[in-house]
């Protein structure tokens, strides 16, 4: 009955030197194993003594998973590449400035120095009931504490809630979806490549996971095709504090225009559902339309169709509407002093 926090219980630690070793460990210990990348999500769980893996597989020594490489006209980013290394990489800066912005918007400098892109996209939700050890659906229980008449759910989902109303907190995830990134997943039984959009899963599919990764799976790399290199990017994150905080909502879009007409675009949001949301309907409606206030307005309105606000997160509707609007037409006006 007694609950104790802040002291990690014992676990066995492995620090494999390469992917093969890591995979064989994961295969050997399956659901007893906990994969640790930068560790910033992991330590919370471990220190809170809520998750108690027998074995931690720390990927710190797997150097082959680090680094950004050119791959055709796109990029391949090792899953263990830190956000700082990503932000500082000339190819990222040159071709996919939006990813830089998104990575730079995450957490704090020290966290970006240690946190990895793989960890950032695979992190667990930050629902404060779940993270505090309340035994909700996501924790194997039969209740969502965040959607009750008295629940505090300012940060929670407006879309695709299925029992659980938690949201995905990643800043890089919507950017990767907009850029049509591919996630390279390996296990002892082989390699699998998943569109970034489909890497994330909602509670309807599996209420205890945020991604398609199953025990034994390892995200090894993220490939960004050259398709959208150098196109028009928009990324914006709205949050409380300018450091540390996860997004209330963020938006990422890539766009190609020609003579004021939107030729093609991809648009994704996060902080609104348990998975980042790609706005396919909006994309379809906006394609071929002139890039102007009217189109932006329409896109914004379409984006919130079907949204179901909770007691404290109704603001996410106007926020999403405005962010999508801005993703289409940009930000208006500024002060010089």
């Amino acid at each position, binding site marked *: *009955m*007694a*609950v104790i926090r802040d002291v990690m219980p014992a676990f066995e630690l492995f620090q494999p030197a390469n992917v093969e070793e890591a995979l064989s460990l994961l295969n050997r210990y399956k659901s007893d194993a906990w994969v640790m990348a930068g560790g910033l999500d992991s330590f919370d769980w471990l220190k809170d003594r809520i998750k108690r893996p027998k074995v931690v597989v720390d990927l710190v020594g797997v150097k082959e998973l680090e680094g950004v490489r050119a791959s055709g006209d796109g990029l391949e980013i090792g899953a263990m590449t830190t956000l700082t290394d990503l932000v500082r990489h000339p190819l990222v800066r040159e071709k996919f400035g939006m990813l830089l912005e998104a990575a730079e918007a995450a957490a704090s400098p020290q966290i970006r120095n240690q946190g990895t892109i793989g960890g950032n996209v695979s992190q667990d939700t930050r629902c404060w009931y779940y993270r505090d050890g*309340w*035994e909700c659906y996501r924790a*194997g*229980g*039969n*209740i*969502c*504490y965040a*959607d*009750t*008449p*008295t629940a505090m759910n300012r940060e929670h989902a407006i879309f695709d*809630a*299925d*029992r659980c109303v938690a949201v995905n907190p990643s800043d890089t995830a919507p950017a990767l979806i907009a850029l049509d990134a591919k996630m390279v997943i390996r296990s002892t039984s082989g390699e699998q490549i998943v569109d970034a959009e489909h890497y994330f899963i*909602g509670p*309807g*599919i*599996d209420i205890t996971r945020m991604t398609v990764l199953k025990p034994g799976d390892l995200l090894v790399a993220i490939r960004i095709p050259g398709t959208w290199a150098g196109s028009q990017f928009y990324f914006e994150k709205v949050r409380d504090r300018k450091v540390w905080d996860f997004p209330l909502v963020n938006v990422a879009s890539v766009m190609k225009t020609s003579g004021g007409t939107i030729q093609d675009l991809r648009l994704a949001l996060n902080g609104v559902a348990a998975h980042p949301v790609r706005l396919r309907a909006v994309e379809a409606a906006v394609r071929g339309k002139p890039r102007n206030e009217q189109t932006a307005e329409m896109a914004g309105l379409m984006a919130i169709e079907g949204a*179901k606000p909770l007691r404290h997160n109704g603001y996410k509707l106007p926020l999403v509407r405005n962010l999508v609007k801005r993703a289409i037409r940009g930000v208006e006006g500024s002060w010089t002093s």
Partner: protein
Amino acid sequence: MDFLKWGRSPWGEDILIRISWDLLYLSAIGGVLFLIGHALYVRFWPQPVPEKGDAATTAALAARIPERVARHSVAARAFHWVMAAAMFVLLFSAFLPIVGVKFAWVTIHWIAGVILTLSIIYHTVHATFWLDFWSIWPEKGDIEDSRRRMLRGVGQSAPAPRKHGKYPLENKLYHLIILITGLAVIGTGVFMMKRVQTPFFTRNPYLFTDQAWGVMYVAHGLAGVGLVALVMAHVYFAIRPEKLWITYSMIFGWIDRGHYLEHHDPQRWNVARPVPPPPPDEDAAKGRRIAV
């Protein structure tokens, strides 16, 4: 094996969460064992020879029995199949994710649950006011018949049991047990809809205490896994060759005279034609009205 899954409330109290899903496998295995057992029994155990009635009486009676004895009205059959469909959807949407087939099951599950609930309400009203309400409920004599049938089934000597009324005792018992489990899942399920987002209710998991919810989840779970075995048995009997005539009756609405005479007691399920006999086509309709 722990049959119940306990969780911890935000106050650190132990609360019931649900049954252990091991019980699902237990129920499924139990169902399969029963089927195998029954199949083996039928295949290898010498079956008692059915009692032949007095030939003269039978012939006289047969003359008054229509070719097709109406057994289930269109409404009743519609109910049965709607209910069956809902039940399958409910069971699959409940248990496939547990065995590893992942999909967004909750909405499907509650919609099927609502359909099942509505169909059962319809059935209750329909059966109460339009059907022979008591025909489906076990009566005192059924127990003695059942005892005799069992003894004879295992080769003991016993007086011949009466033939069935409209429904054999197995049917009646099955109906009874499905009614209990069905009401349990529905009764709990309706409240459980307060725990998820539906258009009907404002979500409020605090409608009952943590402990009361726990009991409700356990009841829902127990009834649910129970239904797995029950439905397996039901389907099994429905497709057994010697029972197919009953299954057909649930599709077409009637049984033929032969089966009627063989299995049913005209005293207890009177479908005999009054005099003068009307044309055959109207028989069914008439029979339906009188006897169903």
